């Protein structure tokens, strides 16, 4: 039993890390958001694994569900009304 559990943990952690990396590194924003939603679901699984059912419920409903919906709707807003790149800044702010 213990070996199987370790395998599950290993897979879960690897999945989490991989999803996190690709959610941020994906070229297309939409793909990034979808990966982020899947990442949210996997997190819910991780909470369940760590005997935190309350958080698993909350994560599933808020983390994956609502955040995903919000992100997708904002993405729709931005891609449909493309304006000039982020606002011109009249101050030579040092970084990014």
């Amino acid at each position, binding site marked *: 039993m213990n070996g199987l559990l370790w395998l599950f943990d290993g897979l879960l952690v690897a999945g989490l890390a991989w999803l996190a990396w690709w959610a941020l590194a994906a070229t297309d924003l939409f793909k990034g958001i979808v990966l982020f939603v899947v990442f949210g679901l996997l997190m819910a699984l991780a909470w369940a694994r760590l005997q935190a059912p*309350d958080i698993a419920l909350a994560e599933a*409903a808020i983390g994956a*569900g*609502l955040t995903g919906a*919000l992100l997708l*709707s904002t993405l729709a807003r931005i891609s449909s009304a493309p304006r000039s790149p982020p606002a011109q800044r009249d101050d030579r702010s040092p970084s990014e």
Partner: protein
Amino acid sequence: MAILKRTGFAVLVMLLGAGAGAAVLSLPPEWNGLSDTVAARLDESGVTNPVTAVLLNFRGYDTLLEICVLMLAAFAVGSFVSERRSAGLGTGRGAAETSGQGHRGVELPIARPGRVLTGLVRLLAPWIILVSGYLLWVGSHAPGGAFQAGALLASLGVLIVLCDHRLLPRTASWLRRVLLALGFWVFAGFGLVPLMFGQALLQFSGPAAGWVILGIETACTVSIAMVLLLLFVCNARLPSLDADADRARGTGA
């Protein structure tokens, strides 16, 4: 030059991660924190689910501030939405005053709501309400509670707005705002009551504690549902109002 900066920063992040990792590993493996103290005082808190006890009784002050954060976020998002488009929060009369012809349909990006969606929502609605009510009730002795129930209700709200877009704008804006603040008022109200009797703020003890906590949780569930719904609606793309906005931008500013 950028590559150097980028890799340099990546090394820095790895160092940070290694340091934090080492710190985490150096923590004592056997350790049971406050779980015993919580278990010992659980019966005085009026609920049996330890997480709800901590959330609403032992560290109730945190949750009170957090409800404030939610209310604030909803208000801030509402204030970022321009006057004409604030179907959500916004100042009711201001909105009506500008859009003149009142609220026409509020369509969403996805195509006209097909039969499947409205049918599904009509089927699911009672169950979702039942489940969230159950989640709220079960929170006192098993995993569940205000946040989860509120989130579920909010998702139901989102589904309904997706189908029938005229639902939200028809409800009076002051009602929406009262619902928004309801959670905080009930929580602060119940919290201030013990202050009158010389006890500390948010001190719920004795037999009524369970019921008081349930009352607070119901109010919070309603507020959380309202907040999360508004967070979604204010951000959603509302093509009809955009049309007015585009026309206004053309003529106005």
